[in-house]
């Protein structure tokens, strides 16, 4: 146990485990959004493996850092990282998407230790995070609030309301991480509602902005380290990612926003993640 509340883990190994769980969950639950989960596996591993001050044995610890997955459709990734870091048994991941299970497709806080907020409709998480960050500062608390967003989600006007508010109120205890994989639901972001100049937009709204390779653990950890880079500004980390990262045939493909890996595709995907499904 360190002063961050939980032990520093091998984040590369953790990311690999998240990816394996996610592909298994997508296979077993016949669920969609695997591409979106693989996109954020490294971000989740870096956060839960060494950045977030959280206590798996005491998930409601008052001084924990708050983490909100605003792109709720990638909930499988959060369930996987919470299970791997000891918030609940890994075996429970088998119930993802199952009738009567707690683990819904979009991330749910009901009865699941470690999940702050249920999301699923896009454009909600950042505002809630803004409120949490405001309250923390009001009460002179030291924890930080992290919100992981998608790029397509930045189409939602509510986010820009929150972005205005966070800068105006100088919420330097707030970190927004955008999973910028550049593919949204039907088409590339650039062909849907172009976000570029994306970093420039956040800067113009008054945020401190860093861009990082969203699969480079050292770069991600450097971007979100304590203390914050600039006093008086919330931080946006634009994480350049690859949708479907880690499984070659899922990478940069809109198809895998929806498709569930079955049969041969499942075996191939798991094989690329170092697992022989026939031996499982």
């Amino acid at each position: 146990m360190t002063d961050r509340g939980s032990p520093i883990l091998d984040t590369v190994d953790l990311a690999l485990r998240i990816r394996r769980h996610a592909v298994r969950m997508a296979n077993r639950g016949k669920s969609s959004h695997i591409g979106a989960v693989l996109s954020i596996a490294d971000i989740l591993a870096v956060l839960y493996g060494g950045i977030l001050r959280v206590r798996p044995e005491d998930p409601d610890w008052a001084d924990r850092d708050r983490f909100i997955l605003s792109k709720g459709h990638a909930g499988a990734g959060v369930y996987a990282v919470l299970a791997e870091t000891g918030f609940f048994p890994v075996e429970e991941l088998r119930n993802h998407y199952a009738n009567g299970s707690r683990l819904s497709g979009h991330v749910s806080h009901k009865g699941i230790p470690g999940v702050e907020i249920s999301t699923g409709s896009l454009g909600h998480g950042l505002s809630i995070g803004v409120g949490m960050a405001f309250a923390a500062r009001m009460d002179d608390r030291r924890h930080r609030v992290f919100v992981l967003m998608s790029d397509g989600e930045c189409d939602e006007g509510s986010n820009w309301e929150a972005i205005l508010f966070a800068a105006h109120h100088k919420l330097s205890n707030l970190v927004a991480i955008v999973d910028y994989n550049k593919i949204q639901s039907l088409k590339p972001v650039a062909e849907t509602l172009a976000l570029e100049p994306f970093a420039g937009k956040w800067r113009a709204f008054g945020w401190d902005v860093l861009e990082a390779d969203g699969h480079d653990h050292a770069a991600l950890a450097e971007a979100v380290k304590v203390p914050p880079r600039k006093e008086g500004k919330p931080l946006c980390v634009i994480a350049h990612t690859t949708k479907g990262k880690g499984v070659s045939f899922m990478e940069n493909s809109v198809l895998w926003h929806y498709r569930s890996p079955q049969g041969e595709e499942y075996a191939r995907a798991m094989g690329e993640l170092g697992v022989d499904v026939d031996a499982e």
Partner: protein
Amino acid sequence: MIRALEGLAEADPDVMLVTGDLGFGVLTRFSERFPRQFINAGVAEQNMTGLAVGLALEGKTVFTYSIGNFPTLRCLEQIRNDACYHDANVKIVCVGGGFTYGSLGISHHATEDLAILRALPGITVIAPGDPVEAAAATRAVYRTKGTCYLRLGRGGEPLIHAGEIDFQVGKAIRLAEGTDVAILTTGGILDVARNARERLAVSGLSVGLYSVHTLKPIDRDLVVELAGRVGLIVTLEEHTVIGGLGGAVAEIVARMPNPKARLEIVGLDDCFSSIVGDQEYLRSVYGLTADAVVAKVQALLTARRR
């Protein structure tokens, strides 16, 4: 309402007021007395509501404040997914229920809010009938866990209650007892209901009058008791006839095996109120006056006697 809120904020430093850039003059004193507990979220109701949820989940009791449909319909999904689903202590205050802002046009007529908000699981919906009820309701929603909707007029509504009232969430207030007819009403149109009752009483009818300030959870026991006892229940609301007070009462009466009462729902018919006029004028256009209620009751009772 705002005076009651100041009292709460003084006693509890975790009480917060977040406005969507409205309340000129009205909120000034609060913002000056309690600057730490006051936020102007700007003209951004979705963020106002999400932000309120974040604050509430960190231990605050947060009143969001705006007019008409802005704090409700504009950010309905934030109320549903973020506030209600997370049992957040967010108290949504709408100023300008019904035709309060009549002349401003339909954008400012809150005439479907009760039905829409009432449909959300886990929410408490309250529309006080006069300033005394409004102050009591403010204190009541503070004490009530979870998400609440408080639908107000604009202040200056006629005072109906002379003294202290026993305001309990989910418990209607009886203003008069009657055996022939019961008038149930919600919100600031209570004075119209009172006038209608007085005139019916003069005509020799025994008419009860109830302020059903809490629309959800509704006073089911009262509705069941009245429906088994009187010949006619009239609901009156400054709101569409779909799904508001009339709807809530109908949901109860329709499930009773043998209700004695027939039910008449008086409200705004299923239309947009596009006629220009102040509150009183619009009430008269859409049949929400004491005259209209009296005429309706007399016609229904005459028809029944035949």
